[in-house]
């Protein structure tokens, strides 16, 4: 088990700051990194993988900078990038053999591992077909297979379920859940249901910062009452949709059932509902509140920076200050 520490991590590209002053610590388990497109998830994962050099700060593994560790750190890693490059004229077997060679695995062990992984990801029947004949979902599964070739202790998956159908998503979730027991798995996505089931800890990113972190229960407890169900006429529904965040809308004849995300009761007859992760995500990415993100210090603290002028540490386990 390895401890990955992010210390004052920042990444700037000319005028844009992709990741701002992130402090965090990962230990074993599955971490879901949730955020909209452009939140900085990919940049953060690239820095943790050692691909992108931070503008400020450092990533440490067991107290040692990863740049210093070099190939010893890379030997622990399994990485699946968001834009997964591959040679279109390679077969799956040849591609995995090439990746095994790049990861310095001996041939015999590589062959065994390749057969095993192709079975796990369901590509064994297609292993001799060229990758240009593969669907997007199959390519993604191949990407997961190559990430697992060297039995990594730190697995970094950037949008791994992109292009997967629901059945493949379920299969993928089961694979990741089983892996997370003995490893550190960092999984980024903008699809809430991907992390809903499998992540032990959830980190929410917005505009380059980790705005909140904690288990789903902790996030729900700290969020308080933010989800409401109301059944209203269509005209009222339109007005409410303009004023509030609506996470679900269901037509019921002449009326509409709305699931609204708000810290205030949106309508007199709105019934309170337990906040789902999606509700919390929508609430935070749509409207950050200081009260929601204030929390006590601890190993799960996330520094949100000084843009609100208040202490907005994102630990949702310890309650408000």
């Amino acid at each position, binding site marked *: 088990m390895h401890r990955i520490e992010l210390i004052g991590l920042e990444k700037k590209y000319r005028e844009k700051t992709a990741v701002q002053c992130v402090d965090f610590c990962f230990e074993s388990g599955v971490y879901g990194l949730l955020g909209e497109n452009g939140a900085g998830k990919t940049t953060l994962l690239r820095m943790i*993988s*050692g691909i992108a050099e931070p503008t400020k700060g450092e990533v440490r593994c067991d107290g040692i900078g990863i740049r210093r560790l070099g190939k010893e750190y890379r*030997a622990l890693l399994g990485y699946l*990038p968001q*834009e997964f*490059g591959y040679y279109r004229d390679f077969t799956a077997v*040849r591609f995995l053999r090439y990746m095994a060679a790049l990861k*310095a695995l001996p041939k015999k062990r590589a062959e065994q591992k390749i057969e095993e992984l192709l079975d796990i990801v369901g590509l064994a029947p297609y292993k001799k077909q060229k990758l240009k004949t593969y669907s997007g979902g199959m390519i993604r599964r191949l990407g997961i297979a190559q990430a697992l070739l060297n039995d990594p202790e730190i697995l970094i998956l950037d949008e791994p379920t992109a292009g997967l159908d629901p059945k493949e998503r379920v299969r993928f979730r089961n694979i990741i859940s089983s892996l997370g027991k003995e490893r550190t798995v960092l999984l980024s996505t903008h699809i809430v249901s991907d992390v809903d089931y499998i992540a032990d800890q959830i980190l929410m990113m917005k505009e380059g910062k980790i705005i909140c972190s904690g288990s789903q229960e902790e996030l729900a407890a700290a969020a308080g009452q933010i989800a409401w169900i109301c059944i209203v006429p269509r005209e009222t529904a339109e007005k409410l949709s303009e004023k509030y965040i609506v996470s679900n809308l269901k037509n019921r004849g002449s009326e509409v059932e709305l699931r609204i995300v708000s810290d205030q009761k949106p309508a007199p007859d709105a019934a309170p509902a337990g906040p789902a992760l999606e509700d919390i995500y929508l609430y935070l990415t749509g409207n950050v509140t200081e009260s929601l993100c204030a929390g006590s210090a601890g190993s799960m603290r996330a520094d949100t920076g000084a843009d609100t002028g208040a202490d907005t540490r994102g630990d949702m386990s310890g309650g408000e200050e």
Partner: protein
Amino acid sequence: MEKELKLMFDQADREIPVSGRRKGEAKEALFRFEARDRCTDICGSRIQVVQNCMYYMDKRIWAAGTAADFLLAVIFMAMRYYGASAGDAVGFLMPAAAFSGAVSILVLSGMFSDGMAELSDTCYFSTKQLACMEMLLLGAVNLTFLLFLIFFAGVQWELPFVQTGMYAGVPFLFSTVLCMGTLLMEKFRNKPYAVTAAGMLSSAGAFGASFVPEMYAAYAAFAWGAGAAAGGIILIFQIRLLLRKIGKGEILCTE
């Protein structure tokens, strides 16, 4: 009793100075020791790793580049066979050298345009190390090719080696610098057609220059020397810049 023991330990912690630097070094040594223990399954030597990578890698672009150099060499030999003059030989030598330079940068750009660079940066060799190995190999191939052209021209057409070396080396450097500059530009990153266009432009430029009589005058020697020196210095600077960009991760990702 426990409280007393704890106090004794706390006091000892305060009194024994621990060097932060030595602590860090010890931690790192322990990590590497553990990693070595963990990595017993990794291939025995670096050479073996390189051999495996070369065995399974996509070699088509390398094969095309080497075939292009080989074809140029064959054409050059055929020119001698069919009685071409020294002037014709030099007229061929300059664009051929420029073309060879462009092809080698095109081969190098394949590392970044296929989308594999990001993934391979998390493997045993970093992309920086792989790029260095590739540039060394390309350099060896190009040097062999250029030396062949120079010595063949020198022997068959009795041209001075140094002079012929300049006629081959300067266009080669000029073409390499132009194509490398294109590769380093963010706008054309991951776009092999841009490097190809730069290569064609430089080859055409070298071909056009070969018809200029002043290029072969004695007083042009200084210009040739200055061109070679400038080309070499700029190329070194570009290689350093490329490696720096790879180290930062800028050139590795497709977006």
